[in-house]
């Protein structure tokens, strides 16, 4: 029987050489995707919300709805 001698060394190195670049690329891709699909829209949503936000108006609306305990609706 004259089989060729199988590869005995460098198996981990060979595997890493193949899989590490893929792992890094996928992780980076995931991070970039998350940044531009989640965090940037969220930051924009918050910025837009607060551009037109009138805190006093909102406070009065909430007060009239009666949810506060320290200040009751103006009628009472």
């Amino acid at each position, binding site marked *: 029987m004259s089989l060729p001698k199988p590869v005995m060394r460098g198996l981990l190195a060979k595997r890493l050489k193949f899989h590490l670049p893929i792992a890094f690329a996928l992780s980076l891709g995931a991070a970039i995707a998350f940044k531009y699909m989640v965090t940037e829209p969220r930051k924009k949503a918050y910025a837009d919300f607060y551009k037109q936000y009138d805190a006093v108006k909102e406070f009065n609306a*909430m007060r009239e709805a009666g949810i506060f305990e320290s200040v009751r609706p103006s009628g009472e």
Partner: protein
Amino acid sequence: MLATRVLRLVGKRAIATSVCARGGHGVAKVEDYTMPAYFDRPDNPLPEIRFVQSLSAEQQSLKEKEKGSWATLSNEEKIALYRISFQQSFAEMNQGSAEWKSVIGGVLFFIGFTGLVVLWQRKFVYGPVPHTFDPEYKQKELQRMLDMRINPVEGFSSNWDYENKKWKKLQHFKECIGFIHECRLNGGSCLVHWAPRLRGVGSDFTTIARDQAISCKCAQLGEKTLPEWAGPADATRTDWSEPGRVVESSLSFFIHDPVSAINPADMCRRRLTCLDLTV
């Protein structure tokens, strides 16, 4: 090991003597599982013992030949020697089987059985849900959440239109209703699937879409009233009125009824107009 050594030293006749010497308790029987065992494992390639323990005459002569130069062994003899020492080759022990099908089948079967058990539990074991699940309570809860402006930027309250006191229309609401409308006009059916969040947004769409199906049916029966879209009351109607209904309302529903002979296009157009969608 100790037992065999003792036997060799004192001979078989002297066993009684050795028994007496040990206080009359006797020698413990050597169990099979305590002796070195043979097993085929890819991570442990060389077991402690040979596979074939008791060699036939032919095998013994082969073993003697093995003590000489290996160049004189033929290929068949080398294979025979291998099979004396090992039961399965690596190729044989690593080959897959069809067992995974039975495993998956068994797993799914028992998951299904567990589902039956859970259903039985719901019916016979659990008591009533807390009063906080009542529709009226839920309505008040919803209203309070809106009053408190829960998650006004991206979440709950962001879907409520505070000016007009109704839920904001969905992004692609018009397209969806238009699509359902077209399907039904062409005599077909439309499978509507949506994933509800317990925030009233999905229920908005479902209620309207369902009402459209129902109202078209009502139209066939001559009823003219439209369901009113009034706000929180309707939001609670579909979603969490009863706890079990959350499951029901999250399933797809099938809008399928034969196109009315009256005037389906006009009917649906009137519905859409009332819902403010035909701009």
